[in-house]
């Protein structure tokens, strides 16, 4: 069991599953639970097939050095995307992900389309496809992380298989946890700290991406694997500095706008006084 791989897959999957769960919940409540759950299960089966076939192909056919370089670069791109969005959300320059708003928006769309409140237990193709599409799209990112992380984390073919198994286990645990929480609460999981999870996963993906890209180019990292912690610390410090800087930029951008808003008010009061 490779704990680092399993943990990274767990956090990344938790975020994506929460997003997918919101849509499945809307379909379940608005169309019917049968179509929603069948769609989600079909998507989960598609994803499992994807991980199994692609994972096995990568483990058996691609040399580890090539794999680390290619996957390292892909993880860097992927990790930087997550990290950028998380930093923008922390600094207030981008709106935070609001599961309740997404829930209401999708529900309104379904109502506008004429779907009734879970009245009919009959299979509904539209509900099935909506549930399938949302789970598949959110799950693709999870599948990508499971395959890349699992396959690159070890050096031998046997440990690479165990890496993918560990990552799959982490993703599966996250999925079960989200489904369990969702089934108990029956409301959008708005209290899950999605941005914090995305930030942590962004740091992890960027750290591992840098480490493996470096190894692909023959870089001998000082202290070997321990250098991962140093890389993570460097990116964490940089991220906190960037958040602080962006918050200041936002304040500076807001200051003239506030001044412009208050200026006419003063003129108006002056006019009224005489």
């Amino acid at each position: 069991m490779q704990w680092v791989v399993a943990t990274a897959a767990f956090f990344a999957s938790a975020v994506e599953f929460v997003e997918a769960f919101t849509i499945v919940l809307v379909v379940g409540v608005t169309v019917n639970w049968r179509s929603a759950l069948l769609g989600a299960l079909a998507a989960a089966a598609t994803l499992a097939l994807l991980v199994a076939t692609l994972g096995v192909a990568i483990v058996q056919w691609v040399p580890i050095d090539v794999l680390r370089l290619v996957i390292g670069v892909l993880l860097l791109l992927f990790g930087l995307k997550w990290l950028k969005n998380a930093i923008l959300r922390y600094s207030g320059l981008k709106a935070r992900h609001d599961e309740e708003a997404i829930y209401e928006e999708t529900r309104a769309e379904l109502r506008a389309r004429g779907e009734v409140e879970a009245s009919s237990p009959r299979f509904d193709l539209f509900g099935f496809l909506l549930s399938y599409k949302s789970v598949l799209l959110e799950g693709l990112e999870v599948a990508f992380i499971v395959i890349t992380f699992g396959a690159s984390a070890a050096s031998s073919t046997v440990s690479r298989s165990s890496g993918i198994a560990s990552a799959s286990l982490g993703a599966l645990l996250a999925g079960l946890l989200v489904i369990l929480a969702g089934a108990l609460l029956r409301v959008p999981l708005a209290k899950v700290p999605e941005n914090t999870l995305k930030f942590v996963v962004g740091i992890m993906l960027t750290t591992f991406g840098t480490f493996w890209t470096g190894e692909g180019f023959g870089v001998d990292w000082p202290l070997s694997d321990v250098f991962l912690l140093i890389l993570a610390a460097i990116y964490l410090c940089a991220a906190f500095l960037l958040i602080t800087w962006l918050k200041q930029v936002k304040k500076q951008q807001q200051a003239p706008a506030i001044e412009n808003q208050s200026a006419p008010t003063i003129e108006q009061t002056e006019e009224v006084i005489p």
Partner: protein
Amino acid sequence: MKVIKAIYNFIVGDMVILIGIALTVTILALINNISTLAPLKGISGPILVIGVLSSLVATLSREAFSLR
């Protein structure tokens, strides 16, 4: 074209990050393959980290200042 765009959006979705990382990887590939640049091999690690951080700073700057 739609497929390429979908893959691009799925993996990165940000041209600044893509160009920054591509540039960094190209520099590292040159250092690894051109003999005159071989003395720089020892600082490949720091170059990679600086490249990653520069890409992040560049894309965030673009986002921050495009909002003005």
